[in-house]
């Protein structure tokens, strides 16, 4: 056997192992690795520290977004109105909601200053496909702030479909807001509303 062949076989094994690992990463491990990786990136990056919002958004898009299921988040936040939306409206809603959440998430990260994290052990059976991963943010002088990720197992790995900070679920919170806007100006009104909010945030930086 020549060296090329051995290398090829080794490489394919590694790829297989990697693919397998990707699929099997348990949700709590996933949350921990992604959180620590992103925080290390933003703390070390001089441009982000200097307030470069575009770069921060890039990091979030690359590292965090793949682990969220925005279709689920949007449909849950829409509640019953989701069923009456056309496919085109659904797509626009998901896009606009995603942009809004990412911008908000970026602001939360930008306010980060060396708080410590306590990653709680997962309380779930190995067969569970819907779990809550608990993280606590520790800061002196205040009670730890819990962050709960509701996650679902999908063919492309575990994906978060809701985040609750201090017991406040994002999806539940947007549900009333969305319902109010839809009642007064319809689904298209909500889409316009979200897009206007996004462009306003985009200008402010």
């Amino acid at each position, binding site marked *: 056997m020549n060296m090329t062949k051995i290398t090829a076989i080794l490489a394919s094994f590694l790829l297989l192992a990697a693919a397998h690992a990707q699929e099997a990463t348990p949700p709590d491990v996933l949350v921990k690795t992604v959180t620590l990786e992103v925080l290390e990136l933003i703390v070390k990056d001089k441009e982000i520290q200097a307030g470069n919002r575009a770069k921060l958004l890039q990091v979030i898009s690359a590292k965090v977004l793949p682990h969220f299921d925005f279709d689920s988040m949007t449909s849950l936040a829409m509640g019953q109105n989701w069923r009456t939306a056309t496919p085109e409206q659904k797509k626009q809603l998901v896009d606009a909601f995603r942009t809004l959440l990412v911008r*908000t998430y970026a602001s939360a990260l930008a306010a980060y200053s060396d708080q410590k994290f306590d990653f709680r052990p997962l309380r779930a059976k190995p067969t569970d496909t819907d779990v809550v991963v608990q993280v606590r943010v520790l800061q*002196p*002088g205040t009670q730890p702030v*819990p962050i709960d990720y509701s996650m679902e197992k999908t063919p492309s790995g575990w994906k978060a479909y809701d985040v609750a900070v201090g017991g406040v679920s994002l999806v*539940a919170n947007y*549900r*009333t*807001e969305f319902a109010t*806007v839809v009642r007064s100006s319809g689904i298209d009104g909500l889409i316009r509303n979200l897009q206007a909010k996004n462009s306003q945030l985009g200008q402010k930086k």
Partner: protein
Amino acid sequence: MTRFLLRATALLAVVAVSGCATSPDADPRDPLEPMNRAIYNFNDSFDEAIATPVAKAYRSVLHVEIRNRISNFWSNIGDVFIGVNNVLQGKFQDGIEDWARVAFNSTIGLFGIHDVASDMGIEKHDEDFGQTFGRWGIGPGPYLMIPFIGPSTLRDGTGLVLDFHFDPWNDVTPSSFRDPMWGLRLVNRRAELLDASSLLEQAALDRYIFLRDAYLQRRRNQVYDGQPPRQRDEDVNEPPKPAVK
């Protein structure tokens, strides 16, 4: 200051009258929405014109380390009645921990400016009279926006009156020292919340609704100490249990 208070009272009278007219599709948890919205707008203007600039100035003048010490000092005073509330809720172990925190932080922690108890692994809790009432089975009642203070409910607002009434800082003399310190305490509190309020501004389509729902969710979570019974999605907007008068 007197003129300001007069104006505030006049404004309240106006909004209280307008508050009687509720729209048919009002949120059942917020029957006083028109009045609450008016107070919210008033609070928002006050916050924008005075509280936020003062809090920002405070934050830029004092280094974060010093601000943390100050926050610790007030947090230590708060622990006394967090303990009382834990005991009133039957959580004796937690109450004893709260008082142990006060004991350690007031002594080794130099009047509370160092949170040595947390370093020792005695975690801070978060309790108040509103939560105690909730624990006793009293529902939140109608949502209330309180002038200068912010979101509350009939239950939590009543609790807040007791929180202020029993606050150990009221026993400090002379008043020429006590009262200005109350002011600084509130400024420090507002400064702690600066990041949260800018997030609210970013995330919300309608800040009033977003704040209200976040407040109600958070209080529910606090009453159950972070383990609220799971609600079905559709039930999130359920009408509140009747408040005990």
